């Protein structure tokens, strides 16, 4: 019973009576409540909204690319604009769409699946979101400036990105923005790791964790171990650009290939950072709609772990054309092929889950089945690149573009769209219309295949990536036209999907608790999920915890009553205080990043000494951040207590969350 109250909320006796706090925001509604929120569900919602917004931004960039390529010798975009489009399309879709929507699910779903009331460090979680937003702003700032958007490809290869070849601030902003996105991701991942290891409800052993939670854990480990590599690469590049160091300066002994190694040491685990959450979502949806437990649960978990582990040993398959030498090439080719094994194991486990199940073809299931099929196609073309000789032909061609869109859209995005449909009733208490849900699925499915399947052939016929136009006599006309038409069907599908969920959010039919008759703990909650999540912390008796609860209601009811009483004896339900400081710290980071990456180097004639606008803005931002962090640590991580009425609403005065309520 001791384990159900969080240590940080233990009343601190006489000390709590005179808290060292300047200001405790208490707003439960309005803008201030969102800026100061530490509720994992609200933060998840913020991640989700941001991700969907950038999905539109990245989608528009993709459509502009496809309009340009629809016919040969097109002049719709200039070569320079085209470079900005594909650079920002890649950067946006990876860092600002798939990762934050994944983080939205980590935040919203994972604590509910393990029976926790929040993540381990609620304020750090808020800081992660705001810093992510700052990074997103910095990366996109170039659109509104003379420098223009970053235009050196999402991989940012040196020496193209050095000051010699790209002197504008566009690359500075890209470098700074990605560093901040890395900080945000690492902070969030550390939080999820501690949460999953330490905040599990009684009885929730590791081998009872829902597979989505397992994949959150693996993804978080991949994030904390792989993001440092790109951060160091970006720091070295930033040092080159700002202070004239020689990391990538060939004339002084720098080696541009170092960038490729550091980038892909991050870049390949990043691929699994994008797909493991998707695999987790699919592993929740398939059992629910097959009405069977997941087939081979331990195997699915361990294959997820081995995918994560092997993912660190294959980075050089992105560099087969750079002349690594035969032995290294062969080793990386073999490792890459080895990854197909655990991935294939998962596919077979999912098929085993479907086998003999009572399949219920609801919208989330449609997207999940679409994932299974499309992700397999992406996997097959992936194994083809693992063979180094074949890769030499395919490298830099549209075949590669086809491959990674099959794993990123057909894999990650399909699963994320499935997840939104699946957890929508839990998040908002409303049900998405089956007709419009399925309509969006078929549009997305047809549009996606029409866009990307022809690219396999275009690539094998030699069409290069990142080239803004082509001649009419290359034999690529038909494939490109089909692809561009497909892109608009795909866009229509995503449009229908988004309009449907926005409509449902405001007007959709109300739904009951556990509408899918699901298996994991989050569905035991009423919807929308109340602020405190669990009325009483549950005890978990089986792998599919909620499925067990539904079949042993008398036992569970008795236990829940005991838990609630025990918690009341500890003073009630503990809630963390809201805080403005994570937000202010991120504001400081924004100011500092603008100083470093956006403000021009001052004219030495005007500012002869150390001080100039660039230094001043950077240091001002640093000072804001430092002060915020100091106040953040001084305000402490105390919480307050709430008590519940029988209907689950918060009792009278408790709702304001005054200090007196708990202590």
């Amino acid at each position, binding site marked *: 019973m001791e384990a159900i109250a969080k240590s940080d909320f233990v009343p601190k006796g006489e000390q709590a009576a005179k808290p060292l706090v300047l200001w405790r925001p208490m707003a439960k509604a309005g803008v201030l409540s969102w800026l100061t929120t530490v509720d994992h569900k609200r933060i998840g919602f913020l991640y989700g909204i941001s991700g969907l917004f950038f999905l539109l931004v990245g989608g528009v960039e993709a459509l502009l690319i496809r309009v340009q390529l629809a016919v040969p010798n097109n002049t719709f975009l200039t070569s320079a604009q085209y470079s900005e489009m594909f650079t920002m399309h890649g950067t946006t879709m990876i860092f600002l769409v798939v990762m934050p929507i994944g983080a939205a699910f980590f935040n919203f779903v994972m604590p509910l699946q393990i029976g926790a009331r929040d993540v381990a460090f609620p304020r750090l979680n808020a800081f992660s979101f705001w810093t992510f937003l700052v990074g997103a702003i910095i990366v996109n700032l170039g659109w509104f400036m003379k420098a223009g958007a970053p235009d050196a490809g999402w991989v940012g290869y040196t020496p193209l990105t050095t000051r010699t070849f790209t002197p504008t601030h566009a690359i500075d902003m890209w470098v700074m923005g990605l560093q901040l996105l890395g900080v945000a991701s690492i902070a969030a991942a550390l*939080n999820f790791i501690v949460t999953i*290891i330490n905040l599990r409800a009684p009885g929730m052993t590791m081998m009872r964790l829902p597979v989505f939670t397992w994949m959150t854990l693996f993804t978080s480990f991949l994030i904390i*171990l792989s993001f*440092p590599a790109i951060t160091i*690469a970006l720091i070295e590049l930033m040092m080159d650009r700002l202070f*004239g160091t020689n*990391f990538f300066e060939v004339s002084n002994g*720098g080696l541009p290939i*170092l960038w490729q190694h550091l980038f892909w040491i991050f870049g390949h685990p990043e691929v699994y950072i994008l797909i493991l959450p998707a695999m987790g979502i699919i592993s929740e949806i398939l059992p629910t709609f097959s009405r069977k437990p997941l087939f081979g649960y331990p195997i699915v978990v361990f294959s997820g772990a081995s995918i994560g582990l092997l993912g660190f040993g294959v980075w050089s398959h992105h560099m087969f054309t750079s002349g690594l030498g035969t032995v290294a090439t062969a080793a990386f080719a073999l490792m890459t092929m080895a990854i197909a094994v655990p991935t294939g194991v998962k596919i077979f486990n999912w098929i085993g889950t479907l086998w003999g199940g009572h399949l219920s073809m609801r919208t989330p299931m449609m997207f999940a089945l679409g994932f299974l099929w499309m992700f397999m196609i992406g996997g097959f073309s992936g194994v083809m690149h693992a063979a180094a000789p074949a890769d030499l032909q395919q490298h830099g061609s549209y075949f590669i573009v086809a491959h990674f869109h099959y794993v990123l859209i057909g894999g990650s995005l399909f699963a994320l769209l499935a997840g939104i449909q699946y957890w929508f009733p839990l998040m908002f208490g409303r049900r998405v219309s089956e007709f419009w849900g399925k309509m969006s699925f078929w549009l997305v499915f047809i549009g996606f295949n029409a866009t990307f399947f022809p690219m396999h052939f275009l690539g094998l016929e030699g069409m290069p990536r990142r080239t803004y136009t082509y001649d009419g006599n290359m034999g690529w006309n038909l494939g490109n036209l089909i692809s561009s038409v497909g892109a608009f069907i795909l866009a229509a599908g995503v449009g229908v999907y988004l309009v449907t969920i926005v409509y449902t959010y405001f007007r959709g039919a109300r739904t009951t608790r556990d509408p899918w008759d699901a298996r994991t703990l989050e569905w035991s909650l009423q919807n929308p999920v109340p602020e405190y999540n669990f009325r009483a912390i549950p005890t978990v008796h089986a792998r599919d915890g909620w499925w067990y609860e539904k079949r042993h209601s008398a036992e569970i009811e008795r236990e829940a009553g005991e838990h609630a009483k025990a918690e009341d004896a500890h003073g009630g339900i503990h809630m963390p205080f809201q805080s403005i400081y994570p937000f202010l710290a991120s504001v400081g980071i924004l100011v500092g990043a603008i100083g470093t990456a956006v403000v021009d180097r001052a004219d030495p004639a005007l500012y002869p000494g150390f001080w100039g606008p660039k230094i001043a803005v950077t240091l001002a931002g640093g000072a804001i951040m430092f002060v915020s962090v100091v106040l953040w640590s001084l305000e402490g991580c105390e919480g307050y207590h709430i008590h519940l009425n029988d209907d689950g609403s918060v009792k009278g005065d408790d709702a304001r969350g005054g200090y007196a309520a708990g202590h």
Partner: protein
Amino acid sequence: MSSDAPAATIDHHFDPTTSTGIPNKKILMWAFLASDCMFFGCLISTHLIYRLHPPPGTLAPRQVFSIELTSFSTFILLMSSLMMALAVNAIQKGNLKSMRWSLLTTIFFGCIFLGCQVYEFRNFVFEKHLTITNSILGSTFFTLTGTHGLHVLVGVIWLTGMLLYSFTGRLTERQAIDVESMGLYWHFVDIVWIVIFTAVYLLEYI
């Protein structure tokens, strides 16, 4: 777990409110240090790769380094780890006064290390003419040791903050984990320095 439990019952290696019994802050710090290992790993690798390809006409490391000074500051930094361990031990026994003296010594040793580094940097730049821009050795050396120096600086600020905080009366044996996780960070920064001292300095004298 109630607030009026006698102080003697606090077990600093077991937190009954978590699933594993390990305090949240300890796992957070270990996971962060794992991440930080990768940061330093990439920087050290960069240095080790580039030292194999010195462009002609640039300074050799042995012409620049002063191994006596660096050995001294390394020793001081290691001693600061000892004082940090004593500080953690003191707060776990609720001995605030002893913790303050240990923390103060740790800060003092940290400052000596930083002072040596500032002296070393100035000496390299102005006497030996090794700058961050004029050679690849300068670029990797100053970036790597500078990043480590920044870590020490953050540690010194953190230690100073904790020392000042101990005078508010809110730092008791119950919050020993706050000092302990700070200690984990400090020891890690020291261990990284041992690796840097070996890979960057000693390696040149073999």
